[in-house]
C-alpha cells in the first residue's frame, strides 16, 4: 500500500507564527531576465561543504556553460561560466557573509555575446524519465546543482541516498514573508518543476512523492496540478498537498511533520526517517540539467521590499552584483533602510550592495524603516515564556538564551541548542526585543570552535608524544651505533697485534682444521637437509649466522668437556663473564664476516658488515645480561606467537639437547630450521639460544677461558692449551660418536613436538648435495674453523709470551 494512502489528515507542528506575508508586492509580475552585467564575480564557495577548485586560469576565454571550477571532494559542487567572456582575476572577493571575510572568486568579464561553447553542454535527453539513476546523479553533480531553497547543500549528495528513502517531499511552501521566487517559478515553469521531481524520484528509486504547498499560493498549486495531469501516468503516486499558511512550515522538519506526521528526532536528519526534502527551484534546475544539459548558471531572485521602486522576480545569472538587480528594479526608494539577503525572519543584513548573487540567494529585500523591527535597544528578559510557545522545534529559547549569554555552552547544548533551526520566531515574539537568534548563532559557532580547538589539542598531544618517542628512539639508536663502532674498533685492535705464531699453537690450529674438515664432510648431508627450500633468503641468512655460532660453540665445548671439571677455576666474576661474552661476540662477528664461503654453502647471501656489527653488539649485550641474571628470563622476549609455557618447554628441551650434544656428539640441532617461523621469531629464537649457550659457557669456564684469554691468568691459559692438546688425541673417538647424531635428532623432534607452532616439516627432506658442493662446503668450513682456532690461540700465546 502506498504511503500516500495513509496520509488522511494534516498534522501540526508546535508553535509557529502568522506573520504578515507581503507576497503581493512581487508575485504579480512575470519573471524577467536581467540584462547581461559587464562583470560577474563567482565565489568558489557558494555551497555547504568544500570550496570548488578553480580549473581556469586568469586570461582564459570561456564560453557560457564551461566549467570554471570543479567539485573538490564529495560534499562540494562545480561552478560554471554564466556567460561567455574572459577570466580577468581569481582572487578573494567579499561575499554576502556576516563575517565579511573575502572568499576566493573567479571574476569573469562578459564579452556581451553570451554564446554557448561547442562543448559546453552535454547531450540533451528527451526521454529523460527512463534514465539510469546513476547517470542521472552524475548529470546533476556535473551541473553543479545545490539546494536553491537557501541552504545550498549539493543536490547530488542528497540524491545518493538511494534505497534509504521512502518518501520524497517537494518543498513548495515558501513560508518566509516577501519571497515569491518559487511561487512565480511554479506558475511559469510548472512542467519543469514536476519533471525535475520525477527525475529525482527516479534517481532515488522512490515511488511516493508529496508536494507540500502553502494555501496562500492557489495559482501555483493550480499550475502544478495541470502539469501533473500532463505527465499523466508518469506522475502517479505524486500527491499535491496544500497546507495551511503558518511560518515556518517551509522548514524541512516542520514541513515533514505537517505532511506525514513524522517527528524528526533530536540531532537526526530526515534521511534517517526515510524522507528526503527538495526545493521546487532545485527540481526545475535538475530538469534543465538533464533535458537541456544546462548547468546551474542562473536562478530566480525576488527583489522586493518597500525600499525598492518596482519589486519583481528576476532571472539572474550567478555572480551578478546586487546593485545591478536593484538598478533594474528602479533603484532604492527614499524609505530604503536596510538591505537584507533572504527574508525578514532568517535573512542576513548586508553592509552594501557591491556583492555577487550566489546560488543560495532567493531574495534581495530592501526594507523600509518601518518594515522590519529596527535593532531596538533590547530590554532584559522578563521570563514571559512567549518564545517557548512560538518555538516550532519544541525548544526552550529562554534557557538557551541564558546559557549562551553566560557562555555556559555545555548547558546550552544540554537544552538542545543544535536543534534550533534559527527561524526567528522566538525573537519575533520577544517583548524585550532580545536578539535571541544571534545568541544561538554565537553559541553554536563558539561550540564548534571549542570542538575544533579540542581536536587540534588532541592532535598536538599525539604529535608531541610521538616527538618524545622519536627522540628517545634516536638516542637509543645512537647509543647502539656508538657501541657497535667501539666493538669494531676493539676488534681491529685485536687484528693489529698478530704475534708470530707459536709452533705449538700452529700445530693445534692445523689439527683443529683437519678435524673440522672431516667433521664437516661427514655432516654435510645433515646440514644440507636443514636448509629447507621453503625458507626465504632472509631466514636463511639468519639461520646460517645462528648455525655458525652454534657450531663454533659446540666445537669448543666438545674439546673441553672432558677436562672441564679438572681445569675449572673458581666461578668467574660478573665482570669476567661480561668481558667473555663481549669477546665471543666479536669473534663470532668476525668469523661470520670472514667466512662468506660457509654462508654460501647454506645458500645465504653474505651479511653486510654493518648488520654483522649490530648483530654482534646486540648479542654481546644479551649475553652479558644473561650471564649476570637468571636463565629463566630467557623466555621473556621470545616469539609472541608462543605461549610462555611452550617457550619454557622449548628452551628447556633445547638446553637439554645442547647439553647432550656438547657431551656426546657434534650434531646440529635442527629445531631452528622451522620454515613456519617469521624472521622476527627466528631472531628471537637465535637470541634465546645464544643466551642458553652463554649460560652453558659460564658453567664450563675452561672453555670460556680460551675465548676470553686476555682477562685470564697465564696459568689458566697454559692449562687450557694443555687440555686442548689432550683433546686432539681423543678426536678419533669423538668422530665415532657421530653416530649419536640420530639420537640428538630424535631429541630435537621432541623439542618441536613441544612447540606446536614450529613446523613439523622442518627436517624432513635432506636435499642431496652434489660432489662439488660438498667439497666446497668442507673447504669453506675448514678455512673458517682454522681462522677461529688461530684467533682463539693468538691472545693466549701473547699472554704466554709475557
Amino acid at each position, binding site marked *: 500500500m502506498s504511503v500516500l494512502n495513509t496520509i488522511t489528515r494534516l498534522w501540526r507542528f508546535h508553535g509557529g507564527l502568522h506573520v504578515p506575508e507581503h507576497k503581493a508586492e512581487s508575485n504579480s509580475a512575470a519573471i524577467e531576465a536581467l540584462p547581461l552585467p559587464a562583470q560577474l564575480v563567482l565565489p568558489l*564557495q557558494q555551497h555547504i561543504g568544500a570550496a570548488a577548485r578553480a580549473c581556469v586560469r586568469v586570461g582564459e576565454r570561456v564560453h557560457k556553460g564551461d566549467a570554471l571550477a570543479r567539485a573538490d571532494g564529495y560534499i562540494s559542487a562545480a561552478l560554471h561560466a554564466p556567460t561567455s567572456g574572459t577570466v580577468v582575476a581569481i582572487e578573494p572577493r567579499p561575499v554576502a*557573509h*556576516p*563575517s565579511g*571575510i573575502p*572568499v576566493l572568486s573567479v571574476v569573469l568579464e562578459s564579452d556581451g555575446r553570451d554564446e554557448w561553447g561547442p562543448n559546453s553542454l552535454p547531450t540533451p535527453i528527451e526521454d529523460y524519465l527512463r534514465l539510469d539513476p546513476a547517470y542521472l546523479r552524475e548529470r546533476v553533480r556535473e551541473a553543479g546543482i545545490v539546494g536553491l531553497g537557501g541552504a545550498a547543500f549539493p543536490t547530488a549528495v542528497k540524491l545518493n541516498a538511494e534505497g534509504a528513502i521512502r518518501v520524497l517531499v517537494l518543498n513548495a511552501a515558501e513560508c518566509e514573508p516577501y519571497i515569491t521566487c518559487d511561487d512565480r517559478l511554479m506558475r511559469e515553469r510548472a512542467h519543469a518543476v514536476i519533471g525535475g521531481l520525477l527525475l529525482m524520484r527516479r534517481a532515488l528509486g522512490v515511488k511516493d512523492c508529496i508536494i507540500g504547498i502553502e494555501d496562500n499560493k492557489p495559482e501555483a498549486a493550480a499550475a502544478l496540478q495541470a502539469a501533473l495531469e500532463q505527465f499523466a501516468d508518469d506522475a502517479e503516486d505524486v500527491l499535491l498537498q496544500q497546507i495551511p499558511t503558518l511560518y515556518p512550515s517551509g522548514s524541512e522538519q516542520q514541513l515533514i511533520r505537517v505532511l506525514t506526521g513524522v517527528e524528526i528526532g533530536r540531532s537526526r536528519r530526515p534521511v534517517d526517517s526515510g524522507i528526503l526534502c527538495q526545493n521546487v527551484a532545485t527540481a526545475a534546475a535538475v530538469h534543465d540539467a538533464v533535458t537541456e544539459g544546462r548547468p546551474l548558471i542562473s536562478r530566480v531572485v525576488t527583489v522586493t521590499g518597500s525600499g525598492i521602486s518596482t519589486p519583481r522576480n528576476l532571472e539572474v545569472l550567478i555572480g551578478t552584483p546586487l546593485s545591478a538587480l536593484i538598478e533594474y528594479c528602479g533603484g532604492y526608494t527614499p524609505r530604503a533602510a536596510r538591505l537584507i539577503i533572504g527574508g525578514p525572519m532568517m535573512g542576513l543584513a548586508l553592509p552594501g550592495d557591491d556583492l555577487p548573487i550566489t546560488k543560495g540567494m532567493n531574495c534581495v529585500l530592501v526594507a523600509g524603516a518601518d518594515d522590519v523591527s529596527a*535593532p531596538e*535597544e*533590547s530590554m532584559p528578559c522578563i521570563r514571559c515564556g512567549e518564545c517557548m510557545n512560538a518555538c516550532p522545534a519544541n525548544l526552550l529559547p529562554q534557557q538557551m538564551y541564558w546559557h549562551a*549569554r553566560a*557562555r555556559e555552552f555545555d548547558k546550552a547544548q544540554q537544552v538542545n541548542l543544535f536543534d534550533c533551526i534559527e527561524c526567528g520566531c522566538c525573537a519575533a515574539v520577544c517583548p524585550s526585543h532580545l*536578539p535571541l537568534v*544571534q*545568541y544561538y*548563532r*554565537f553559541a*553554536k*559557532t*563558539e561550540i*564548534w*570552535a571549542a570542538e*575544533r*580547538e579540542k581536536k*587540534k*589539542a*588532541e*592532535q*598536538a*598531544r599525539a*604529535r*608531541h608524544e*610521538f*616527538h618524545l618517542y*622519536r627522540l628517545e628512539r634516536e638516542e637509543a639508536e645512537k647509543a647502539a651505533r656508538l657501541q657497535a663502532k667501539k666493538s669494531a674498533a676493539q676488534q681491529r685492535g685485536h687484528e693489529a697485534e698478530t704475534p708470530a705464531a707459536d709452533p705449538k699453537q700452529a700445530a693445534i690450529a692445523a689439527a683443529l682444521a683437519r678435524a673440522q674438515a672431516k667433521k664437516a664432510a661427514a655432516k654435510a648431508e645433515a646440514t644440507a637437509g636443514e636448509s629447507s627450500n621453503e625458507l626465504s633468503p632472509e631466514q636463511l641468512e639468519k639461520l646460517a649466522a645462528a648455525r655458525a655460532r652454534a657450531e663454533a660453540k659446540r666445537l669448543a665445548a666438545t674439546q673441553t668437556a672432558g677436562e672441564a671439571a679438572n681445569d675449572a677455576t673458581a666461578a668467574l666474576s660478573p665482570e669476567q663473564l661480561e668481558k667473555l661474552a663481549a669477546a665471543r661476540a666479536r669473534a663470532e662477528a668476525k668469523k661470520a664476516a670472514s667466512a662468506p664461503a660457509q654462508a654460501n654453502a647454506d645458500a645465504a647471501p653474505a651479511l653486510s658488515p654493518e648488520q654483522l656489527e649490530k648483530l654482534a653488539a646486540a648479542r654481546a649485550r644479551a649475553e652479558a645480561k644473561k650471564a649476570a641474571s637468571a636463565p629463566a628470563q630467557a623466555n621473556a622476549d621470545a616469539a609472541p606467537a608462543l605461549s610462555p609455557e611452550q617457550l619454557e618447554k622449548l628452551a628447556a628441551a633445547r638446553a637439554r639437547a645442547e647439553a647432550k650434544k656438547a657431551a656426546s656428539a657434534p650434531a646440529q640441532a635442527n629445531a631452528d630450521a622451522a620454515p613456519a617461523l617469521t624472521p622476527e621469531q627466528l631472531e628471537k629464537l637465535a637470541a634465546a639460544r645464544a643466551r642458553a649457550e652463554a649460560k652453558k659457557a659460564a658453567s664450563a669456564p675452561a672453555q670460556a677461558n680460551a675465548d676470553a684469554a686476555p682477562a685470564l691468568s697465564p696459568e689458566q691459559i697454559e692449562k687450557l692449551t694443555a687440555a686442548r692438546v689432550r683433546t686432539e688425541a681423543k678426536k678419533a673417538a669423538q668422530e665415532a660418536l657421530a653416530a649419536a647424531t640420530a639420537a640428538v635428532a630424535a631429541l630435537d623432534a621432541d623439542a618441536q613436538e613441544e612447540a606446536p607452532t614450529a613446523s613439523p616439516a622442518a627436517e624432513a627432506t635432506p636435499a642431496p648435495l652434489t660432489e662439488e658442493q660438498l667439497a666446497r662446503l668442507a673447504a669453506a668450513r675448514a678455512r673458517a674453523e682454522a681462522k677461529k682456532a688461530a684467533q682463539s690461540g693468538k691472545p693466549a700465546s701473547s699472554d704466554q709470551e709475557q
Partner: protein
Amino acid sequence: MLSAVFALTLLALTFGLLLGFASVQFRVEGDPLADRLDAVLPQTQCGQCGFPGCRPYAEAMARGEADFNRCPPGGQAGIEALAAVLGVEPKPLDPENGVEQAAMIAIVDENVCIGCTLCLQACPVDAILGSAKHMHTVISQECTGCGLCVAPCPVDCITLQPVPATLATWKWPSPLISANAQQEPARAAA
C-alpha cells in the same frame, strides 16, 4: 553489652574487608588528576609555564607544585577550566608567564631560509618540514603556535602570525558585546 560489642566488631571487620577488597580490585591506575588537567591544557607545548610541555605542567599541578595560572595560550578560559578541575577559585593569569593572545602560527620566509634544521629540532610537534641545506616550511595544520622555533633561527626567517580566519572558522560575535558597543557611543552622544 557483649552482643553489641560483638555485632559492632563483626560489622567493622566486614566493612574493613569490603573496603580492602575494593581498594585492591577497583584501584585506579595512573594519576587521573594529571590526566584531567592535561586534557584541559591547550597542548601548545610552548613551555611558557616553565615546564617542558603540557604534560609535565599537568603533573606538577596535580602534585601541587605548580600554580594553575601559568598557561598563557589557554588564557583565562583555560585557567577557569583548570580551576574547575582542581576545585578552586580561578585567578588571573600570572603575567610572569606571558600574556594571552590570539592563536598564532609560525611562518617560514622561504626566501630567507638557509636550511639549518635548527627549527626542526626545536619544534615540539614536528610540524616543520625540511632537511639540511633545503628550504623548511611549516605544516600549518599541525603548528601549535608555541614560538619555540623563532629563537633558534640564525637568519630570523620565522615569524609568528595570527591564524587567518576563514568562513569555516569564523565565529559570530557575542550579541552582548556588540550591544554594549552600540550603547556606549549612544551614551557618549547623550
